[in-house]
Every structure is written in C-alpha cells, then in structure tokens.
C-alpha cells in the first residue's frame, strides 16, 4: 500500500494537483461558512415545519406549512412590515441626501482633510447600544438636549418619543446619523472616479454647474448611488438594536420593526418554529434584494470596465 502511494505521489500529491488547486483554496472558507452559517440556516428551515418551542421539553411534531400560513395571514405581521418599510424608506432617503452632500463637501482636497473627515466617520464606529442609549437621553423630555433646544419654540417640554410619528422620526434620525457616512464613502469614491478631462472640457464650454452635474458627475455616480441604496436598504431592513433600545417598539407597536417582532416571537413568546417561518420569509425578501444588488454591482463594473 505504502509502495503504491509513493509511486503515485499519495494523497498529498492528489490533493495538490493543479486541477484541484481552486477547490483546495476555497475549502477553508466554505467549511467555516457551512458550519457557522449554512448549517444553522438549514436547521432553522427544518424547525419552521415543526411546532418546536425552545422553552418546552415536548417532542416537536411535524406541522407542514401551517407556521407559514399562520405568519402570512397574521395582520400584525403585515403591520410590522409596513412599519419597517416606512422606517427603511425614510432612513435610506435621509442617508442618501446627507451622505451625498457630505461627499460633495469632501471631494475637494483641502488642508487637514484627513482629520475633518474623521469627525464625520466617527458615528459609524459607535456601537448600536451606545447610540441607542444616548439618543434616548437626547430625546428625553426633562433632561434631553433636544427638548431644551426646542424649548425656545414650544411652551411645553417637547416629547419626541410620545407620538408614533415622533418615535419613528427619532429612530430614523439616529440611524441616518450613524450610517450617512457610509453613503458618503460610496459617493466619494464615485466622485473621484470621474475623469478630470471631462471637467476641463466643461470649463471650456462654459457649462453651468447644474448642467455639469447632470451630464458629467451624475452618470458616474448613478450606479454607486444605486449600490448605496440597496446596501443600506438591506442593512436597515435588519435594524434591531437601535429600535429596541430607543423605543422598544412603542408607543404601542408603532415602531416595532420586523426584526424586533421576530426577536419578540423567538425570545419572549418562545414560538421558535413560528419565528423560524417568519425569518425565512424575511430571508427570501433579502435574497431578492441581494440579487438586485448584484445586478447593480455588475452594471457598475461594466460601466467603468
């Protein structure tokens, strides 16, 4: 046996054969991903067909699609999706506007740019817990700085989180503040990819700055903006920590996003299987969005390639 191995090079040589080099290099990544992500994903897919409860020791029974049926016919779930859509929509729009304006500002070279840029990038590095806790303090009617600053305009103490609209605004502002710098980075990369000679040509043609923007700058950042929208939509869709800390989904359930609802179903009501079913519906939506995202990435690659 050893003789044969030595002659043919053995298992080591078989493994290192150039034909298998690609597969070999990919293996560690795939193994880690399989154990830590894909396997749990399949497990929860399995759970979604049973009536498993993490809090009870009863042997779960097979329920087929009934969990999916229950989730999809639940009016509460649709309300949560609506809330999520409102928060995601307004937050992403706000991030785009702020991120875009910041990028325009930082597209120029100026003294101490590196340091000033750090001021804007810092919110991204804070933890959700700290942003949540301190924004909650800022919004606080008695001690908060927001109601203090607004006290010049309103007679009473301004209660930000008291009404559904205010609570949503409060969450959106905290989230947009944290992640606009990310959009800024993307747009900035787009702005600096515009070939300089195009601007020089526009200078000669005396094109107005608005026209210059629409005909030169915008085409170059168009698909990066799309990238930013999709990436931020996917990320904001998962928004959990900030909502949970600032409003806990209230007042009532007006700010309960789908992620918070999912957490409640799984860890407060221990409806493990039902939450798995809902999680899979969420995953499906995210996969669709990921496809759109890839489409945008490819288009961008074609444009600049």
């Amino acid at each position, binding site marked *: 046996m050893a003789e044969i191995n030595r002659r043919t090079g053995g298992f080591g040589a078989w493994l290192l054969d150039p034909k298998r080099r690609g597969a070999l290099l990919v293996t560690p*990544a795939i193994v880690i991903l399989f154990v*830590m992500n894909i396997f749990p994903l399949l497990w929860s897919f399995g759970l979604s067909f049973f009536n498993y409860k993490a809090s009870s020791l009863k042997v779960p029974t097979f329920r087929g699609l009934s969990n999916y049926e229950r989730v999809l016919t639940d009016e509460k779930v649709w309300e949560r999706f609506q809330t999520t859509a409102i928060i995601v929509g307004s937050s992403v729009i706000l991030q785009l506007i702020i991120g875009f304006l910041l990028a325009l500002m930082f597209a120029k070279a*100026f003294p101490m740019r590196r340091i000033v840029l750090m001021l804007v990038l810092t919110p991204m590095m804070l933890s959700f817990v700290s942003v949540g806790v*301190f924004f909650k303090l800022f919004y606080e009617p008695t001690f908060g700085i927001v109601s203090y600053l607004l006290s010049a305009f309103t007679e009473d103490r301004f209660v930000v989180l008291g009404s559904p609209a205010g609570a949503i605004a409060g969450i959106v502002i905290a989230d947009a503040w944290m992640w606009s710098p990310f959009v800024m980075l993307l747009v900035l990369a787009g702005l*600096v990819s515009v070939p300089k000679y195009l601007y020089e040509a526009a200078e000669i043609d005396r094109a107005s700055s608005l026209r210059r923007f629409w005909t030169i700058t915008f085409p170059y950042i168009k698909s990066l903006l799309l990238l930013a929208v999709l990436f931020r939509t996917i990320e904001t869709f998962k928004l959990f920590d900030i909502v949970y800390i600032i409003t806990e989904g209230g007042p009532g359930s007006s700010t309960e996003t789908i992620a918070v609802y999912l957490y409640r179903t799984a860890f407060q009501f221990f409806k493990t299987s039902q939450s798995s079913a809902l999680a899979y519906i969420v995953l499906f939506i*995210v996969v669709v969005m990921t496809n759109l995202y890839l489409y945008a990435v490819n288009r*961008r690659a074609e444009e600049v390639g």
Partner: protein
Amino acid sequence: MTKRYREIGKAGWSYTLITSLVGLIYFSPVLWIILTSFKTRTDALAVPPKLFFTPTLDNFASVFYRSSITTGTSQATDMALYFFNSIFIAGTSVGLALIVGTLAAYAFSRYPLRGNDTYLFIILTTRMMPPIVVIIPIFLMFRLSGLAGSYWGIILLYTAFNIPFSVWLVKSFFDELNPEIEDAARMDGASEGRVFFRFCIPQILAGLSATFVFGLILTWNEFLFALLLTGVETRTVPVAMARTLGGEVGVDYGLLAAIVTLFLLPIFFVTFLLQNQLLRGVTFGTVKK
C-alpha cells in the same frame, strides 16, 4: 490599485474652516458623549443640560475600579479583561477571515470552479441574511458542542460573518491585477507559491488593509451574538456596556460614556491610520482607476 486616490480640485484654509464647522456639527452627538464621560452624575442629568462644568476623571476610574460604599475599599472590575476580549476576538476573527478569504478570493479569481458565480452568490447571501434567522440554531449548536462561552466559538462565528465580505472585496482586487505578469513569472520558473506571495499579495496590500479596517468596524460593535454566546470570561465590551444599563438607580450615563469613549479610541486610530485605504476599499473594488 497603484494610483493614488485623487480629489477634484483644491481648496484653502477658509474651506477647511467651513468643513470643520459642518464636521463638528455632525460630530456633536459624539462630542456630547465624550463630554458626559467627564461629568459627575448630577452634571450628566442637569436641567438644563450643561455644556460647561468642572471635569472629573471619576467615571474613567470607575470603569476599572469599583469602590464599595459599605467597606470603603476599591475593587478591580473585569472591564480590562473585556477590553482585551474585544480586541482579541475582533482582531483574530477579522484577521482569520482575511487569510481564509484571500485564499478563496484568489481561487475564485484565478482558478474558477464549475458554478463559480453560484458559490459567490451563496457566500454573499450569508452576509446579507438577517442574523436573527440563524440565532436560534446557532444558540442550540453552541450549547450542544460546548462552544458557548469559549473564545473559539465566538471567533469562528465572527470569522464566518467576515468571510463573505473579505472574499468579495479581495476578489475584486485580484481581478484588477494583470495576469500576464504572473504568467511571465511562471515562465521564469517561479513556483505557484512564489507567484502568489511575491507578485500578487504585495500589489493588493492597500486593498487588504481596507478590507481589514472595514471588517473591524463591522465586528467591533457586534452585540446580539456576543450577548447570547459569550460567557463571563469571554464577554466583550458592547455586552458589558449593555449590562451597565440595568441598575436600580437608572442608567449611569457618565460611566457608560466613559466606556464608550475608551472603546472608541482603538477603532478610531486604526481607521485614521488606514483612512486612504478605507476610501478605496469601501466601493467593493467597483471603481477602477
């Protein structure tokens, strides 16, 4: 990758003044947190909020030492351990993901497998997936295998979170390299290992550091999995932060602000040092220069 990052036009100090002003307004919530870390408990919750006050370092002291009122002695808290844990866990897992991801990215770029794009798509989907989808199985899995509460468990999990991003980003850097140089090196008798380490890696070093810093920002503050899967010995700072919230006397904002400020420092300096790389890396390599 070799060309330097270029800006549109130049501006002088007056422009710096304007941008710093806007930057400071944007930074003001962070500034407020930093100020709060130097406030006493009464100053932190003063009505109206105080901008000027006598600073104290008590909060920073009580991050690491807790004085007991009953015995009058001070006792070390475990916060130093939590800071070590955060640095160790985030650093190791982002580094590990970068190594594993770079190998995979090289393969995806140079030796495409059958169904290459499908693999890449599945890898990306695992990054986009809401963490809550897998949290229950992972929790059960960690409890059954004894990984819960260990360094290896959380490090492997974070590595898995960072791999998709590393693969995609690093692949885009490899794609930008000119394979003819590699072929020329092979003609001259360079081994595959030499081609990889001597020709490919040095050219994408900037890209690799961008990947590292971006992964670090995303891992540094992870909370949900750290909360469920770390034990007393392996607890990270975000979890410790959240634990300071639940008190009978309400949130100790000064203490929390001190932890937040200290926890911001390492990531802030790493980002500052690698800022230029970050500016390039964030676009997933879709901007060709």
